[in-house]
């Protein structure tokens, strides 16, 4: 049960975004630039970073929806589960593992990121923009996750809903709502 009168039938962040369009606009734009716009990190890699941070924050809605978007980009749901469980043994590039190490530290506290974490990523080919975007994706999901959880939003367990949402996010990005109509809450 949400803590405030959010519109019914809108799961997770879509409830907060629908409730307050003034703040929704820059939040959507930020997610779109970070996860969807052109970048030397693929959209699948960026969604994996978002999913991993959301899973560390134990935010069900965000890890399920971004996990579904990552699975859609990568055409592989198993890699998403492996990244969440133990990214070091997941079938992803060494560069992405080094970036996930940085993201995991930002999730706890940005001050934990060390010069050697950054050097390790750079040695594996990470550029400054990629390191910047990794830090900001991790930081941004510390916001999105807290927003979704802090309002007590409805976070369904329905896997099909997340699969559909993930497909929308992977194909359309974040500027247009993926949930346009209220869903059945029963």
């Amino acid at each position, binding site marked *: 049960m949400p803590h405030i009168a959010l519109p019914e039938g809108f799961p997770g962040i879509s409830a907060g975004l629908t409730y307050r369009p003034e703040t929704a606009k820059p939040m959507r734009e930020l997610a779109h630039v970070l996860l969807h716009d052109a970048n030397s990190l693929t959209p699948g890699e960026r969604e994996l970073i978002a999913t991993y941070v959301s899973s560390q924050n134990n935010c069900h809605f965000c890890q399920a929806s971004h996990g579904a978007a990552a699975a859609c980009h990568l055409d592989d749901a198993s890699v998403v589960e492996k990244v969440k469980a133990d990214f070091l043994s997941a079938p992803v590039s060494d560069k992405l593992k080094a970036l996930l190490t940085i993201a995991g530290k*930002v999730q706890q506290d940005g001050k934990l990121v060390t010069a050697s974490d950054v050097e390790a990523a750079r040695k594996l080919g990470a550029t400054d923009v990629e390191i910047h975007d990794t830090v900001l994706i991790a930081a941004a999901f510390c916001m999105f996750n807290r927003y979704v959880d802090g309002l007590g939003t409805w976070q369904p367990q329905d896997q099909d809903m997340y699969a559909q949402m993930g497909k929308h996010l992977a194909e359309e990005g974040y500027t247009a709502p993926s949930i346009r109509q209220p869903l059945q809450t029963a």
Partner: protein
Amino acid sequence: MPHIALPPGHAGIRSAMAFRPETARPLNDLVEVLLTGPNSLTRGERELIATYVSSLNCTHFCHSIHGAIAAAHLGGDEALVRQVKTDFTQAAISPKLKALLVIAGKVQKDGKLVTPADVEAARSLGATDIEIHDTVLIAAAFCMYNRYVDGLGTEQPDDEALYRERGRRVARDGYVAVSHEYLETPATH
């Protein structure tokens, strides 16, 4: 020393924003709506929430600049800002704002810690749904801004006079207008 080649001559989040104007624009737009947009919470109250969360996250740049902006909105009362950072329950602020700071402090740790009783307490002291929403989002957003500033290893000056001067300017002109100082393309649209 920053972890990546941030443009010299800027401190804290300004250096990160100057490095990546594409993300700076929505980041500035969000803080502008949350902290300066029309709201039944005063600008001073909202800046105190931002300052308190930044102080819990120990992000020197953010709690200094937002503390200075809060003081500028509150008639220069720097002692009040310090008291909110140290122990807001003893500060000369309204009971409603104290209840909202309880919620903000929980969101800073984990949004799931906010209870219906916390929200009911704020509501019984006069907080509206939008005020509760904005408190949650301000707290969540500063968990982002703080991590961004710290995670890139930005320069965070110790100079109180610098924060005081800039705080007055941001309090007067807002975030988007002041962002012209470090972004070549204005963040407005």
